């Protein structure tokens, strides 16, 4: 069984149809990249999978381990193992990154029938993970994403992913607004999480990120449909030739 399966998915926003029949299978251990120009539905796809309000699924299915994801509330999806690394992480004033992480981690542990994490154990874990990601430990004392630079925000997303160990991670334009050093750090974090029982869906506009996070499969999204699929070489081809031929073909 596929880890995440998207079957003929149609979705609209404010009455306007954005996704027009997406079908995609992510096997455990695989990294899939979704590429495409702006406005083709890339972010809609990630928001629909994560369960954001305002997106109406009109047709199709999303299954995680064969379970109906669309029937779950956003938090249930998260606890079931779907993680979305946001393109624009939200600022939450007054809430320290550490308190946020702990609350999220305990929500997951509760789901797994485990007791709340002990304070010392938690700090040890965060210390280890921040060190692993080359992040200053002090960052977790700051209010979540408040006043973070673009790079810090994306690193904080990867830190959360590392702590929560999801089954499926969706990276929504994680490379946007990152300089080359930050891109490397973030990618290394993601790569360290690659494992035989986890899948990634990397959504990006540019091929650049895929130099660091090398995908198994690349899909081109245009006008709400997947118009081409291939191996990692497809990304290079897109980089060289642009999206024009797919856009025209799909229109």
């Amino acid at each position, binding site marked *: 069984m596929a880890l995440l399966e998207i079957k003929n998915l149609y979705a609209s926003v404010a009455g306007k149809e954005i996704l027009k029949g997406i079908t995609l299978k992510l096997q455990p251990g695989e990294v899939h990249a979704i590429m495409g120009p702006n406005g083709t539905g890339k972010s809609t796809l990630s928001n629909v999978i994560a*369960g954001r309000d305002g997106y109406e699924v009109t047709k199709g299915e999303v299954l995680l381990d064969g379970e109906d994801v669309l029937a779950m509330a956003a938090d249930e999806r998260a606890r079931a193992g779907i*993680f979305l690394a946001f393109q624009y992480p*939200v600022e939450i*004033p*007054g809430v320290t990154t550490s*308190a*946020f992480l702990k609350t999220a981690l305990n*929500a997951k542990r509760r789901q797994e029938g485990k007791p709340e994490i002990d304070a010392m154990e938690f700090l040890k874990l965060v210390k280890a993970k921040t060190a692993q990601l080359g992040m200053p430990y002090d960052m977790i004392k700051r209010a979540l994403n408040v006043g973070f630079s673009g790079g810090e925000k994306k690193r904080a997303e990867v830190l959360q992913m590392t702590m929560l160990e999801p089954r499926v991670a969706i990276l929504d334009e994680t490379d946007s607004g990152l300089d080359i050093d930050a891109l490397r750090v973030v990618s290394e974090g993601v790569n360290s999480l690659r494992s035989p029982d986890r899948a990634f869906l990397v959504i990006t506009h540019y091929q650049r990120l895929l130099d660091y996070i090398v995908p198994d499969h690349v899909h081109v999204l245009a006008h709400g449909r997947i118009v081409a699929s291939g191996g990692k070489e497809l990304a290079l081809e897109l980089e060289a030739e642009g999206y024009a031929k797919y856009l025209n073909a799909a229109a």
Partner: protein
Amino acid sequence: MAVTRETAAAVKEVEQYKYGFVTDIESDKAPKGLNEDIIRFISAKKNEPEWMLEYRLKAYRYWLTLSDEEPAWAKLHFPKINYQDSYYYAAPKREKLASLDEVDPKLLETYKKLGIPLLEQQMLAGVAVDAVFDSVSVATTYKKKLEEMGVIFSPISEAVHKHPELVKKYLGSVVPYSDNFYATLNAAVFTDGSFVYIPKGLRCPMELSTYFRINEKNTGQFERTLIIADEGSYVSYLEGCTAPQRDENQLHAAVVELIALDDAEIKYSTVQNWYPGDADGKGGIFNFVTKRGACRGKNSKIMWTQVETGSAITWKYPSCILQGDNSVGEFYSVAITNNRQQADTGTKMIHLGKGTRSKIISKGISAGHADNTYRGLVRIGAKADQARNYTQCDSLLIGDKCGAHTVPYIETRNPTAQTEHEATTSKIGDDQLFYCMQRGMTQEEAVSLIVNGFCKEVLQTLPMEFAVEAQKLVGISLEGSVG
């Protein structure tokens, strides 16, 4: 003593002949209603000296002239209170329940979430408990230690007898009996409360708390607290407990007076979680409290922190009179109203001395059909050279059926003073909620987390163990507010 016994006897006579009701002085209750005899009864019952009775009567007679002066300026709506329809001494004790099975399951649910031990749950809910309550014995141990250091920490009724000179000197010196309708009523009929005296130069090594006196409680309706910090001393006082009490008293009118002499500091923290009434606004406590501190000495400091989550009506303005030069007043407040609750709360900072400073941080959260008002006064007197005030009032609205209001008064009479006031209004963003839920939190967890972040500046001024429970309480009081 002889005097009071005579008074008691006189009261008895008067009662029997003049008003035709017989009250056994040994009994635990006075009849409903309020008159001079009831006040004499309360005083006699407490074996009070003549001066205390006189004080009460003076207040009562003054209160009678205030019938048109019941405050109406607050943004609060409630039916007119019939003061003759209340018990003023030992209101009939609520019936003891046989077991926790008889307690409202919602209340028990809350206790569970707060992590209150079973025995304590029973105490709070009013179940008859035979076992010795842990913190009572703990309290006794502490009390001895405190006494050795010269700290007086006792019920005010006891202090009237043991330390009349202190009570006489300071009672009513910050909140005079004529202060306002509710305070005047309290002065006439107060039942009991805490008395604290910290001797010169002592830094009281432990937090003093009414929690220790939980067995002596049942004085809730008209509590009276008096705290005196003598020169160079420090005390931190905690009021209330974080668990909601099953309490059927409708009206609470407490008075708290704080006095800080030269270089003394008082930190007064409250977590108020009285019964707020049900979702439709039925029942709940009317909480009319007068709290005021006088920074009488130079360099003295009074800091109020309050977390107000309970009561149907909250009318409360913990204030500081900054008399001493370079004295400091601080007010940190979280007020949460949900369902049909109404709160009109804030502070007064009266700057009289030179170099006085005050800081006001108020966080109001309104949900359901509730109304939440910050009302505050900053007054800079003509002589308060170089006085400073900073005020920040933030309101958070949850849902579109509630109201959040800010009514600051800033009166400045001194050119060298600087005052600064800022207020904002915001809501919990949908994107914030989604972000938290995408990380696996339930909606209620997410709301609690975000609101706690909003209140952080205030909550972090609470003593540690109080802060943890207050944080949980913030979440609990907002349950069901989103969605």
